[in-house]
């Protein structure tokens, strides 16, 4: 009976303490600042560039002499792509798409993956087996075919927009490995003393899963989530190849990098700028993820 107020107390202090611990981690703070800066730049940058110079991500110069790839200069700090479009504007716009895709798809994969994996792992037995076999089936069905069908069924005439389909397609696959990892962790935790104790005192299954097991599997989950973000961004580049990614003349970091690597021998700046921007963002996200992991770790909390 007295369990309830104690848990509420623990709940509030968990997040506040975690936040303080996070702020003490210098690398994590740096990561947070860089990610924040990147979000602001991607959100506001294209508009500012347009007002200052008139360049947009899809502006191809009228003068045919300018329709080619120029190296970085004062007017084009990152140079231009082969259609003469300002690379800075394209990289910032690509950032919008990539960040959105990466974060939303990862979030979806977290929610589905954790719930599914934790349920399967905790319940165990036949239910676990059925749930995991279902994951195996989903793994095996050719993703490409799903995407092609998804597109043909909803792509051509329905009002569902392309971006939504993209999230759907990415979300559909990214939670699979996540759920397996969570399940593995939960299985190893569920027989530990604190869970057994909770069970013995009659705490409900749902509460055990969400209050006791979940915080303890967060470590690997956060690490895997930070791995999922780049993976999803690259998946997006692959989907563009199939025609389900973002539609031209929009671009994403993945598609810019793919174009850049093709032209590396001739126009190296086409790879360097999108590539470095993407790498810096991923590094920052990762430092942030590591910081979060340490901050939320229930073991460190004890110390």
């Amino acid at each position, binding site marked *: 009976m007295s369990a309830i107020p104690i848990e509420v107390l623990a709940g509030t202090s968990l997040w506040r303490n975690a936040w303080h611990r996070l702020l003490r981690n210098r690398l994590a703070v740096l990561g947070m600042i860089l990610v924040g800066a990147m979000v602001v730049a991607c959100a506001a940058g294209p508009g500012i560039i347009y007002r200052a110079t008139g360049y947009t991500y899809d502006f191809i110069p009228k003068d045919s002499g300018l329709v080619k790839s120029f190296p970085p200069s004062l007017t084009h700090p990152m140079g231009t792509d082969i259609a003469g479009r300002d690379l800075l504007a394209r990289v910032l716009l690509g950032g919008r798409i990539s960040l959105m895709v990466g974060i939303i798809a990862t979030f979806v994969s977290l929610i589905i993956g954790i719930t599914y994996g934790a349920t399967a792992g905790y319940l165990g037995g036949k239910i676990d087996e059925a749930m995991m076999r279902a994951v195996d089936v989903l793994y095996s069905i050719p993703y490409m075919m799903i995407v092609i*069908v998804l597109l043909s069924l909803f792509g051509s005439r329905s009002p569902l927009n392309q971006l939504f389909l993209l999230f759907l397609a990415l979300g559909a696959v990214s939670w699979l490995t996540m759920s397996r990892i969570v399940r593995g*962790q939960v299985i190893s935790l569920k027989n530990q003393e604190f869970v057994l104790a909770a069970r013995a005192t009659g705490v409900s299954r749902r509460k055990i899963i969400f209050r006791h097991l979940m915080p303890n599997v967060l*470590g690997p989950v956060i690490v895997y989530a930070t791995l999922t973000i780049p993976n999803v961004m690259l998946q997006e580049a692959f989907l563009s190849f199939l025609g389900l990614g973002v539609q031209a003349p929009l671009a994403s970091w993945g598609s810019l990098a793919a174009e850049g690597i093709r032209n590396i021998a001739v126009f190296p700046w086409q790879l360097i700028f999108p590539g470095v921007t993407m790498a810096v963002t991923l590094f920052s996200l990762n430092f942030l993820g590591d910081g979060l992991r340490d901050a939320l770790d229930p073991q460190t909390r004890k110390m």
Partner: protein
Amino acid sequence: MLKFVIRRLLSTFPMVLLVVTLTWGLIRLAPGNFYTGERVIAPAIEKNLRAKYGFDKPWYVQYAKLMSNIVRGDFGTSLKYEGQSVNEILRRTLPVSMTIGLLAYILALSIGIAAGTLAAVRQNSRVDYASMTLAMLGISLPNFVLGPLLVLLFSLVMYWFPPARWDGFPSRSVVLPVITLSAIYTAYVARLTRSGMLEVLRADYIRTARAKGLDEKTIVRRHAMRGGLLPVISFSGPALAFLVTGTVVVERIFALPGMGNYFINANLNRDEPLIIGIVAFTSIAILLFNLLVDIAYAFVDPRIRY
């Protein structure tokens, strides 16, 4: 345990048929046909083509035929590649994909686990930062960027390895594809190992071990490794399945005659028997490797019982 393994192995069969059925349905839903081409073909030729491959029969007859063939282990003949049976294609491409995939897997596991463990044991030290930064580099350099970069450096500047094509194993042509393929997996394994180990190193039984006065090496090897590798094990099942059944990007960049290359084109060509053959094969691999993973769980962590 044995009962569990047998039950799982037996369940593989209906599962593969389920996967095949779903895939078959998806192919039927997708627009276009294996003969769709730039020029619209005359209805008469279309009819001839459909008759030639049995597409003129009702769908349930086609489905029944497909299933009965699969049960007998015969996946039929490719629609796109005249006269090549799917079994033959699998037999020819699998060794290539498997060689590259297994080598990459071994490389990824050995380097990844070593680096991850070291990083965890010396948390927040230089070793930790260096190996984790390298791991991040592996992740943020997509393989379609890493491959060409390696080729530029090692084939076109240094002339150490051929830029593409397959010369069999062992040969120099194996090196660059394997490195390219393993980079991201190494990074994944390293990061998962580190976080798993960190988790475990603080667990009560490790403290007990420390309190008993065991030296750090033994603690890590005997006790921590077991629990710490759980996330890696979860990850490695599907990873291995995907690695050995072909990875499209690497096979395309290096022009390797592997399964991935066939698979992507089979999808684009709507080559039904070939898609189904490769999917069935992949699903068997996934089911088996995940079974291995579950067995490995039980070995690594004695608390887990089936």
